[in-house]
């Protein structure tokens, strides 16, 4: 384009200012990508939740248990296809910093309820035959360098404490990139055998799979009705509602992230708008010359907008590129405290759209003022 040399020459006239403005964009876009990824990670549970799954917890709180004896009664309710039960184990591998979620599972039903978490049949069969067997998600296996056949000690302060030994029989993978691959599963029978007498026969929560997602409300009411007025009343909700409520415990993450994002971009808008306004004001007489020799008002607006857009795009691409490099590293550093930090293409695209929008808006006011400038008055300022 014949004007590109002119646009870049103008951009490069104050190199320090250019670098600082591009830097502001890059930092803002990096922050945008990071916040979007964190928000996505927090909301992942709700996003990946199966529409045909219900979670049943103790009505009082999730830390209160429910009798295992409820399982058969629940299975008899029409519309329930399969049910598994889980307990939170709360252990660490060797050291406190090596935390990851461990669940006691019902090996007969787990795969029926979570079909998206794939374990090869030979590994699963080996697991079924091994009371001390364990299945681990691919991310956790990679994190600790575990391979099938490894003997894995997990320390816990619950259930009498001490180190429990497991044999790694299989590694599961999620069908989708957003599936959680950090969990560690082991057998109910082994758990039941080792825990103190007073807590035997108690599970943390049930997860059931429905014949049809349309049955969710009816089945949830039926289950809670079944155990109403019992010592362990239940609260049944869809898996996505359960995940959303879980995230709410940390506060309104979405609102917090959105607020930070809005403030960052508003500040960026002010910074860039001010920079462009100064840049245009410094060039008043030059822009007047352009107009005098025949450049139209629209051409003047185009020059100013093009400059702010180039700044926005370079800064945006730099910030998002930095995010693409830094976020995977950050995910590793977080050691599984959050689900996988995934920088989705949609976030990158949205980031660029936001950068372009800020670029246009920040260039618009100075551009319009340059466009409306009267040549005679501007030349008089020389």
């Amino acid at each position, binding site marked *: 384009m*014949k*004007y590109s*040399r*002119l646009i870049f*020459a*103008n951009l*490069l*006239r104050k190199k320090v200012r250019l670098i600082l403005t591009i830097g502001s964009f890059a930092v803002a876009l990096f922050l945008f990508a990071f916040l979007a990824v964190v928000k996505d990670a927090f909301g992942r549970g709700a996003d990946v939740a199966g529409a045909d799954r219900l979670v049943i917890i103790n009505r009082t709180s999730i830390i209160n248990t429910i009798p295992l004896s409820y399982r058969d009664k629940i299975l008899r309710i029409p519309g329930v296809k399969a049910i598994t039960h889980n307990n939170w184990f709360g252990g660490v591998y060797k050291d406190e910093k090596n935390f990851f979620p461990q669940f006691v599972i019902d090996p007969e039903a787990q795969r029926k309820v979570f079909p998206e978490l794939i374990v090869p049949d030979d590994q699963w069969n080996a697991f079924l035959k091994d009371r001390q067997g364990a299945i681990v998600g691919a991310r956790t296996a990679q994190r600790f360098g575990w391979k099938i056949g490894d003997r894995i000690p997990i320390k816990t302060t619950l259930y009498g404490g001490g180190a429990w030994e497991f044999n790694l029989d299989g590694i599961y993978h999620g069908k989708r990139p957003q599936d959680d691959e950090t969990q560690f599963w082991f057998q109910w029978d082994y758990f039941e055998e080792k825990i103190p007498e007073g807590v035997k026969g108690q599970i943390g929560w049930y997860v059931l799979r429905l014949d049809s997602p349309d049955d969710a409300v009816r089945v949830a009411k039926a289950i809670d009705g079944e155990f109403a007025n019992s010592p362990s009343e239940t609260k049944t909700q869809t898996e996505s509602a359960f995940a959303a409520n879980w995230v709410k415990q940390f506060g309104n993450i979405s609102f917090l992230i959105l607020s930070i994002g809005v403030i960052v971009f508003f500040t960026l808008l002010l910074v860039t708008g001010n920079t462009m306004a100064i840049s245009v004001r410094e060039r008043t*007489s*030059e822009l*007047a*010359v*352009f*107009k*005098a*020799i*025949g*450049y*139209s*008002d629209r051409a003047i607006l185009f020059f100013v907008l093009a400059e702010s857009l180039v700044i926005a795009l370079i800064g945006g691409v730099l910030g998002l590129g930095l995010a693409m490099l830094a976020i995977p590293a950050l995910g590793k550093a977080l050691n599984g405290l959050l689900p996988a930090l995934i920088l989705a293409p949609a976030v990158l695209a949205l980031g660029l759209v936001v950068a372009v929008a800020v670029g246009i808006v920040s260039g618009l006011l100075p551009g319009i003022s340059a466009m409306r400038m009267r*040549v*005679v008055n501007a*030349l008089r300022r*020389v």
Partner: protein
Amino acid sequence: MIRVDNNGSSSALIQVRGVNKTYRRGGENIQVLQGLNLDVDKGDFVAFMGPSGSGKTTLLNLLGGLDVPTSGHISVDGDEITNMSSSKLTQWRARHVGFIFQMYNLIPVLTAFQNVELPLLLTKLSKAQRKQHVETALSVVGLSDRMNHYPRQLSGGQEQRVTIARAVVSDPTFLLCDEPTGDLDRKSATEIMELIEELVAKHGKTVLMVTHDPVVADRAHTTLHLEKGVLVEGGKLPQNAMAGGVA
């Protein structure tokens, strides 16, 4: 042939008829130009002189389509410019007017070549054609060896030569020079005036120039004086201007 007393029809390149210009400043109307008439033929070289505030630059702005008169008409080569919309006037300026400013007004981040090329970017000329035109213009002003220099690397006289090259590169109908030597030493001023004379004599350009310098004005074919918004030839007010201002 320049006439300041014609208020009828003529075949002059530039025709100014009954032009008034009034500014409003601090709640007060200030009449800068009063019923101006002027005919300038193709190839004329006119110098406008007069004290500060007499309306010289205002007249130049009106002739260049940078400003519009409060009343009256200006036509150039048959185009009535006083009725043109702002965008039409911009296009008209690109085709018909070459501006030479006192402070050169070059774009500091562009080389001499790129500065001269600016008016041509508005045309449909190819890159090769633009290059040829720019090189020709720079050779006319004697700066073929300074094409890739930035304004800061040029002397004042050289900068003004680049401005002249920029003004003539698109072969405009006429050139407007606002104090073209006002910021130059005597030697450079003489060189610039020789160059402008050459543009008139050799290339048939029509030049209208504002200056405070009588030596510079002497180079023009005709010197017109503006006094209190009234145009007078050779420094004498036309008789009817004394009565009503309109010659």
